[in-house]
């Protein structure tokens, strides 16, 4: 039998060492643990459809140099932090200056804070289930540590822009850790962009730790180019009466993967996970979500929509795990899929594990095409084919796009969607 492929040792060499000692130590330790890490293959259940798109050639092992770049044309309302190739660019960033809000890049932490962070990193993630996140922990060059004191409300969204430049092949490892103390509140936008044409891998990890009553809204917009493999993981742990809301909007690439894991650990916790995925050409997008109802009296609501055109492939795997003590759990998962061509493929799998007996748990998944009768109705009013198809496709995701709480993200997503419609639909 052929031995399972393992991670090339080239990937175990971080580039820079300008991190505080506790983080350097953590990174080294995580790296050592990666020696001989088996890579996902098609026999790995959670990478069944995506392993063949995962390319970890040695040229990608090099950390891309963080040079910053000229002319960040950002007109984002609110606060922003810009990362280039995984390292913060202070001159492009605009931090909030509010009592009780500490937003610092890893490189600027003092040893005590760095030690506290090192204790926490990875503690929201089950790294057996999200194996690729382990690579981030062994490789991050910088990151953002966000701490909100109790009852602090960030008055505007915080934009975190992660841009990679593929002028040479390599990889970047963006990392965010958010500590939201009791009854604090934040809306955070992660935007993933790229330039250049050489093959690049982005391996991004974001973690959220919510104390009692904290209220966190996360918006994630993935719009990197055709040269970028994006492997992302988001871990969330929620204490009692906290609320987490996630809006993921992603456009395809050679590989897009996002693992989103939420643990509801205190009574009265609530999460709402929305996702929109659009793929075209030969793109591939894989969303794996997992919601753990650990404590009783928690609600989860999940709605994902995939749209696949041409010969693209989208995957949705939604797991809900209701633990034995999680009585009165209320979980609702819905995944609808739209195939825009006969060559496109969508695989969807709801996974429910329920060990408590007094719960409400509903799930539904559908795969369909645009309705011909609706299309005929629209064109019979003089509306052109392209516009009619666009209206119907937008109708499929409108509800989710409308719910995105940040207008600038809605606008950016809509612009990219319009390009997609122009490329996908032809006038008769």
């Amino acid at each position, binding site marked *: 039998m052929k031995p399972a492929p393992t991670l090339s040792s080239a990937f175990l060499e971080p580039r820079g060492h300008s991190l505080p000692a506790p983080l350097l130590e953590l990174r080294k330790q995580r790296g050592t643990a990666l020696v001989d890490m088996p890579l996902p293959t098609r026999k790995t259940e959670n990478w069944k459809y995506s392993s063949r798109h995962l390319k970890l050639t040695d040229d990608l092992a090099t950390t891309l140099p963080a040079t910053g770049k000229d002319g960040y044309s950002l007109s984002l309302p609110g606060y922003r932090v810009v990362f280039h190739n995984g390292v913060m660019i202070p001159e492009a960033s605009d931090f909030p200056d509010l009592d009780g809000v500490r937003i610092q890049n890893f490189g600027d932490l003092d040893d005590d804070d760095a030690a506290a962070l090192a204790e926490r990193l990875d503690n929201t993630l089950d790294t057996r289930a999200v194996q690729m996140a382990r690579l981030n922990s062994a490789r991050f060059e910088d990151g953002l540590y966000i701490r909100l004191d109790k009852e602090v409300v960030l008055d505007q969204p915080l934009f975190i822009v992660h841009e990679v430049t593929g002028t040479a092949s390599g990889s970047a490892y963006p990392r965010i850790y958010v500590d939201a103390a009791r009854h604090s509140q934040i809306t955070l936008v992660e935007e993933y962009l790229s330039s250049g044409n050489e093959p690049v891998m982005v391996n991004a990890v974001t973690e959220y730790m919510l104390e009692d009553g904290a209220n966190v809204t996360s918006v994630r917009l993935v719009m990197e180019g055709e040269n970028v493999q994006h492997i992302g993981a988001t871990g969330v742990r929620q204490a009692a009466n906290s609320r987490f809301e996630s809006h993921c909007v992603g456009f395809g690439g050679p590989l897009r993967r996002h693992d989103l894991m939420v643990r509801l650990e205190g009574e009265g916790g609530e999460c709402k996970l929305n996702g929109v995925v659009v793929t075209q050409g030969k793109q591939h997008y894989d969303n794996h979500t997992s919601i753990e109802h650990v404590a009783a009296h928690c609600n989860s609501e999940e709605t994902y929509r995939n749209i696949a055109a041409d010969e693209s492939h989208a995957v949705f795997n939604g797991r809900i795990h209701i633990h034995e003590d999680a009585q009165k759990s209320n979980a609702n998962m819905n995944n609808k899929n739209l195939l825009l061509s006969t060559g496109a493929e969508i695989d969807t799998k709801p996974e429910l594990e329920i060990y408590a007996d007094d719960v409400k748990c509903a799930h539904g998944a559908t795969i369909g095409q645009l309705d011909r009768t609706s299309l005929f*109705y629209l064109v019979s009013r003089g509306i052109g*084919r392209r*516009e009619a198809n666009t209206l119907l496709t937008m109708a499929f995701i409108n509800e989710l796009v409308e719910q995105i709480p940040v207008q600038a993200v809605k606008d950016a997503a809509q612009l990219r969607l319009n390009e997609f419609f122009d490329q996908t639909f032809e006038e008769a």
Partner: protein
Amino acid sequence: MLSIKNLHASVEGEEILKGINLEIKAGEVHAIMGPNGSGKSTLSQVLAGNETFEVTEGEITLNGDNLLDLETEERAREGIFLAFQYPVEIPGVSNLQFLRTAVNAMRTHRGEPEMNAAEFMKLAREVSKQVDLDPAFLKRGVNEGFSGGEKKRNEIMQALLLQPKLAILDETDSGLDIDALQVVSKGVNALRAEDRAILMVTHYQRLLNHIVPDYVHVLAGGKIVKSGGRELALELEERGYGWLGVKDEEATPSAAS
């Protein structure tokens, strides 16, 4: 205006229309009556360009142009309008957005500037009053959760907005109570104009009490078997279709009115 010659059409290999001949001039109102399964709705759908139906023989011209060469949307822009028997519900597309897109597609075709949202809203509010439809319906999804009567009024509203040359009304009276029937009829009568023709397809004669046709045709077995003035509709109401040698298994017009 509309000329149909020896039209044959089939669906999934089964011939439904078996040689229709019909001439409609501008300003005229024609009614096509006939029992269920006679091909009335097929004729409407073929005129509008539904690709489910295949035209196997014959020709249709609109003001001399070959209609069969045109796509559905091109026919609409040339002035064909079909009020659907079963208007389609499209959740996620607002009625307002749908109507404005349609009106602007027509305007662009005619070389007129598009209407902006505010201009269109004003127009839509006016027209919605004409068919007694609460403007709140404009904000809802296309026909989403509308009652049968509301859907039919929305169809007539579209006709009033799009100002077609030929309006085809497919069973527009079905499922309407008497009040709704009056509202819809008022809307249709408002459409009557010198330069516009109306083709009503109906199973029952009661609509024809409100919208008086110039000509009545009886369609049976995929052919027009009898044509006449409006008195033909009254005669059909009296006597049913039997005297024409036509079976109506479902109901006679008189029994259903």
